């Protein structure tokens, strides 16, 4: 139990994003057009299915995607009450392992619109991860970002500060995109190991990331109040300290810009 940094590691390593039916047969290219928006970027981006049939959306790389600990669906409120499955495939497109099999709940984050799921099956080096929508519900699926993440867990976060940004503030640039910001936050995580620092730097951070707090209750975290922050990392500093035994202690001081939510 702790505070997880969730970047879209699977999205980064995927060779393609496939939209298929429930037997992994790819749909027409015209229907799948624009599905790349699920990989990252602002929350305003979305893909809408032209029909209402069941659809699977999967990140695929036959030479291996590594592992994943979590799946996060942005604006999962669009699927409130609808059953979905989270999938992992050691061998794509064999039958795969279905997880969850229920509506995305609880919804968390600013305005309680997102859903985070800790994968219940371990995949050391999967060929694909995906989500199946509309298993028992017929509706046109609108999908924003879907992250599969090999999470980095921190045991402690301190000096957590949250400052709301004016709703009329301009969007801020970050790695080629502009993002409307809900709030800024600062916090220090650690102590961490040098291996954690290396893992942190190796995570993809050009697209927004999530901080997911699996402590506390179903709708709040002990570290971060809203349980889930969808944010860009605006600044970071590794702080080195030493304890009384002259042992090294490492911390990461983070400056975050939490993305503005909305359902437009």
């Amino acid at each position: 139990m702790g505070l997880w940094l969730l970047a879209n590691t699977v999205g980064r390593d995927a060779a393609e994003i496939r939209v298929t039916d429930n037997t992994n047969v790819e749909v027409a290219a015209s229907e799948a057009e624009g599905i790349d928006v699920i990989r990252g970027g602002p929350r305003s981006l979305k893909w809408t299915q032209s029909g209402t049939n069941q659809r699977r959306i999967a990140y695929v790389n036959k030479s291996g995607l590594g592992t994943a600990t979590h799946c996060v669906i942005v604006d999962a409120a669009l699927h409130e009450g609808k059953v979905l499955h989270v999938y992992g495939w050691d061998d794509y497109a064999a039958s795969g392992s279905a997880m969850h099999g229920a509506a995305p709940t609880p919804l968390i984050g600013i305005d309680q619109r997102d859903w985070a799921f800790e994968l219940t099956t371990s995949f050391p080096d999967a060929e694909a991860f995906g989500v199946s929508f509309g298993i028992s519900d017929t509706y046109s699926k609108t999908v924003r970002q879907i992250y599969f993440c090999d999470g980095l867990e921190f045991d402690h976060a301190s000096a957590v500060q949250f400052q709301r940004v004016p709703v009329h503030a301009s969007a801020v640039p970050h790695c080629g995109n502009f993002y409307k910001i809900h709030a800024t936050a600062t916090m220090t995580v650690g102590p961490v190991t040098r291996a954690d620092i290396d893992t942190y730097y190796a995570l993809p951070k050009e697209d927004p990331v999530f901080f997911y707090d699996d402590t506390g209750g179903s709708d709040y975290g002990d570290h971060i109040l809203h349980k889930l922050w969808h944010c860009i990392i605006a600044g970071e500093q590794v702080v080195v300290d030493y304890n009384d035994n002259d042992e090294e202690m490492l911390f990461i001081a983070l400056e975050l810009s939490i993305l503005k939510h909305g359902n437009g």
Partner: protein
Amino acid sequence: MAFWILPNTAGAVASSMDVDGSTTTATYDAENLISGPRSKMWRCDAFGSVVRVYYNLPQSYSMSHCVIARADLMMTEEGSQISVAYGSGLGSPIDGIGTPIVAANLVGIKVDGKPHGQDAVFEFTSPVTSDVFQIAIGHASGTQAAMLAKVYFCDGLLIGNGPQRGPTWSVRRDGEPERTKPLLGYEEYAVTDAIDLRWRHVGREEIEAFEVLPLNWPVFLWDTDGDIFAHKLEHVILAAYSWTRVGEDSFTLETSWRRLAHYP
């Protein structure tokens, strides 16, 4: 002491407003009572006995206070009475000023050398739940018009033991208002003085309750004993807020407010 944040809960969710007993003109619309600057008013034509203004809500809400801005405009020659009620038609009375409104009924800052404030606060003995809230304005004899700036029915928020004592208003020496937007709103307001208020040892649920207040509009700060504000009531917009986590369920909430321009 009790220090309340009083938003216009009814105005934020109202499905419609009705005026019964008189007519309104287009330039003095009843919806002006919901939000906007203090210069924006509702006015009804001269009426014989009673005129009622209703907030119709889509479902039942609990209210703890009613605030009337520019109640001083009711200190007319004939004298006016105000009653606060819930329910449609004649409704069920909650509170009111049965005798003609006089200076002693008014709170808020004194403007232009007048010896009294401009607003009236009705603090309900216990919260009242209904889907219709109303005020009734009457007078003893003759006919006369009525005019008010705002009518707020509020689900008030008490945070801990109130803000730390001792903050002072930063007064604009030139006396000229400037135009600014609330932190969470898009409409500009003419504002004057500024004050910072800090609450310590605030619980998580209080932070969450604060964050969902309709703070895109002006609110009233009601200091029942005048410990913070000499005039007890302030009509303000939220300019900034931040919170810092200082313990497992303990936060410091820091806020900045701007006083709305008042007019004689």
